[in-house]
């Protein structure tokens, strides 16, 4: 404030000296910053006597001194403005309160202007108190006090009839006279659904959540009163990090600093834990409380994620979505998927999955699914020509119990059964069983952080075997190997995925391999490559990403035992979920294909 007044005074002195050289006539005298009526009549008379006289800087300074003596908490400066004619000048005595505060975060350049009016828009006058109205109107004639405006806005929002019903913002507009401003509080009514539920707790499946808006979220104006770490022994942290966390206390809330320390905390607690940050209002007004929640991560992942959102122009839309919001162990997915398999299935997939059965080593799940199945004509035509293969079916139902054992957070094995019933079309509608024993091994290095570079490599092997011992009508063994290498450095990301498969025996169609969808051999159509899928598979995908822009090259082959394997390639570009895949060396029936995959 003092700086501002000092600068104002300097400007006034310069202007004064310039105008003094030409001895301009005073056209008008005004007071800015305080109501003129607050000055004594003698002082007001002395000011008005300047009008019509040649401007005398010494006389003006004397009047400024008298204003200061009458308003002991203020500083007055003389400001001259050009008059209506070149030889005339307007004298303004700028009065500012000398609060002694330095220019801080609340400094607003408009604080030099006088409030001409205070208005409330969007809120009826009878919805807030007379006391608040009077408090607002007291700002008129004063210089803008940004902090006071903020206080009054909060008070208005907290009025009983407005709380949880309106949001309130403020703005400043030019007044009708120069150097004057209008303060406007704008109220906006919330949508009815929020007004109806605000502040009320709704119980859902034993849990609860509070629906409300408001000032629970601290702002950068708030001072951090405490920093807590939950779920982890802080004694295990480095002294440097502890000091930095403690150093936040007493300072203004700084999101960048909070996030920086969260990253450091994550580095120190290692990947076995996840760190989340919560910032809330403190115990006193104007304070904030920062909490770092450190939670131990389960070793086993959720294995029943069947969600797909994809579009392929020749295979249609696939939207199969999942949910496990209310009870973590219960999952339910439903929709249609024409992308993953040779068949297009629609239906639901539900079950229970526990990733930690008393110990992080052990998990279990049971999955139940029922699908109606639709086939492409290319598939049905080829099946008709190959009667030795397992045929098409109308419905697929499955029950799949399994257990999982984690050796550590990087590797685990699974074992289970898939009891699948197929409602076959040929020779007439009848049920057949595809009962499998399943097993798998998975390794995932997780993200290995080296500075700002993170690397991940993963590998898995999956085996499924249909056997007479499980009363299966289909006898086969299916192997699949997957490998992944991914590196991320800054905004650059590279990814290499490789998988291969082999099936012996006579598998049902849902187990056969295919390539040419939104993730493999992008640009090709699986129904052009192999409409019934194959029993041998190999695929390599290389991707490079910069931010949301990507480039990929896919190479793969799918074939049946005893037939020649044809290598096919595609390349393309990606933009987030959008991709343009171009098959390499394909016939006239194929070309660039626009794909979407979330």
């Amino acid at each position: 404030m003092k700086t501002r007044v000092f600068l104002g005074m300097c400007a006034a002195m310069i202007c004064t000296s310039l105008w003094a050289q030409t001895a301009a006539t005073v056209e008008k005298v005004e007071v800015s910053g305080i109501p003129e009526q607050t000055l004594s009549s003698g002082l007001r008379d002395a000011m008005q006597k300047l009008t019509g006289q040649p401007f005398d800087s010494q006389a003006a300074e004397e009047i400024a001194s008298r204003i200061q003596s009458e308003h002991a908490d203020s500083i007055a400066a003389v400001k001259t403005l050009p008059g209506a004619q070149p030889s005339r000048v307007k004298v303004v005595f700028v009065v500012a309160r000398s609060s002694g505060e330095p220019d801080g975060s609340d400094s607003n350049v408009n604080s030099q202007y006088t409030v001409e009016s205070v208005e409330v828009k969007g809120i009826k006058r009878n919805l807030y108190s007379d006391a608040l109205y009077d408090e607002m109107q007291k700002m008129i004639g004063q210089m803008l006090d940004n902090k006071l405006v903020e206080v009054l806005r909060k008070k208005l929002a907290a009025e009983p009839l407005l709380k949880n019903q309106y949001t309130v913002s403020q703005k400043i507009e030019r007044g009708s006279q120069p150097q004057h401003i209008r303060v406007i509080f704008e109220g906006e009514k919330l949508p009815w659904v929020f007004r109806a539920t605000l502040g009320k707790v709704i119980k859902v499946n034993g849990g609860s959540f509070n629906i409300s808006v408001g000032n629970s979220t601290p702002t950068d104006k708030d001072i951090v009163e405490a920093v807590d770490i939950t779920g982890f022994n802080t004694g295990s942290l480095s002294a440097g990090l502890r000091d930095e966390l403690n150093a936040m206390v007493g300072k203004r809330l700084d999101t960048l600093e909070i996030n920086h320390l969260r990253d450091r905390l994550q580095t120190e607690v290692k990947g076995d834990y996840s760190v989340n940050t919560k910032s809330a209002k403190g115990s006193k007004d104007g304070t904030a409380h920062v909490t770092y929640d450190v939670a131990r991560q389960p070793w086993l992942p959720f294995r029943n994620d069947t969600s797909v959102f994809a579009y392929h122009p020749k295979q249609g839309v696939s939207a199969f979505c999942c949910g496990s919001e209310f009870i973590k162990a219960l999952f339910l997915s439903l929709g249609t998927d024409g992308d993953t398999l040779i068949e297009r299935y629609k239906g639901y997939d539900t079950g229970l999955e526990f990733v930690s059965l008393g110990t992080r080593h052990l998990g279990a799940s049971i999955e139940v699914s029922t699908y109606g199945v639709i086939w492409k004509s290319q598939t049905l035509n080829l099946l008709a020509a190959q009667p030795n293969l397992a045929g098409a079916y109308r419905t697929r139902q499955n029950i799949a119990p399994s257990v999982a054992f984690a050796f550590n957070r990087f590797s685990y094995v699974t074992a289970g059964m898939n009891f699948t019933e197929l409602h076959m079309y040929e020779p007439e509608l009848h049920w057949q069983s595809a009962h499998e024993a399943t097993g798998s091994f998975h390794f995932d290095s997780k993200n290995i952080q080296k500075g700002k570079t993170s690397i991940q490599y993963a590998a898995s092997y999956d085996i499924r075997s249909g056997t007479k011992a499980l009363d299966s009508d289909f006898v086969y063994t299916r192997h699949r190997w997957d490998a992944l290498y991914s590196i991320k450095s800054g905004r650059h990301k590279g990814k290499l995925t490789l998988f291969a498969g082999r099936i012996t025996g006579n598998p049902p169609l849902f187990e056969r391999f295919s390539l040419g969808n939104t993730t493999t051999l992008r640009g090709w159509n699986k129904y052009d490559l192999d409409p019934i899928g194959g029993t041998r598979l190999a695929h390599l995908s290389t991707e490079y990403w910069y931010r949301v822009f990507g480039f990929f090259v896919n190479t793969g082959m799918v074939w049946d035992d005893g037939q020649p394997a044809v290598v096919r390639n595609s390349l393309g570009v990606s933009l987030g979920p959008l991709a343009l895949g171009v098959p390499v060396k394909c016939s006239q029936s194929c070309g660039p294909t626009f794909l979407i995959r979330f």
Partner: protein
Amino acid sequence: MNRRPLVFRFFVVLVVLAICVRSGYGQTLKARLDGDQVHLDSPDLHFISADARQVLHDGVTVTYSFRISISASKYSVPAVSITYHCVFSYDIWEERYKVSRSEPGARSASHLNEDAAQKLCVESLTIPTASLTPDSAFWISLEYRMEDRQVSSSGEDQRTWLGAVVEIFSQRKEKPQLTGMLQGGPFRLSELRRR
């Protein structure tokens, strides 16, 4: 389906986005030495967003926080971090900006146009040379973020996902909160241009 126009449109979108990204490349971070302080300079950096500008033109103060991180290499963990805050306001009569660096150490300037205000803010972000090793190369990262300016309607509550949705729908004028990051290097103290 007429594939050719679809492909053409896709490439047009890609080209437009590539141009947008290219404009981001223009934002370079430079450093120069002035006494015992390293000053930053990024002439092309325009961090005041359209939303922030609207808030400023409504006469309301907008604060940007800046975090300077010094690291030995481009992707290594920062060895030094310093946080600054720049407070902007817009003179609704003179249509000029005022910028104040609130902490650490207060300094301010007014009667600036938008570009000058942003430039002055960035130039006021300094790194003490004492925190740098004279002969070692270092990288400077500059993260910035528009501070949240809260507009409230109620008292005590808890933030939930639904609360966040409510805020999105109810405070559409108050949500501008843009972040960005610039990086420059490698620099050596002994090779920095002196003022």
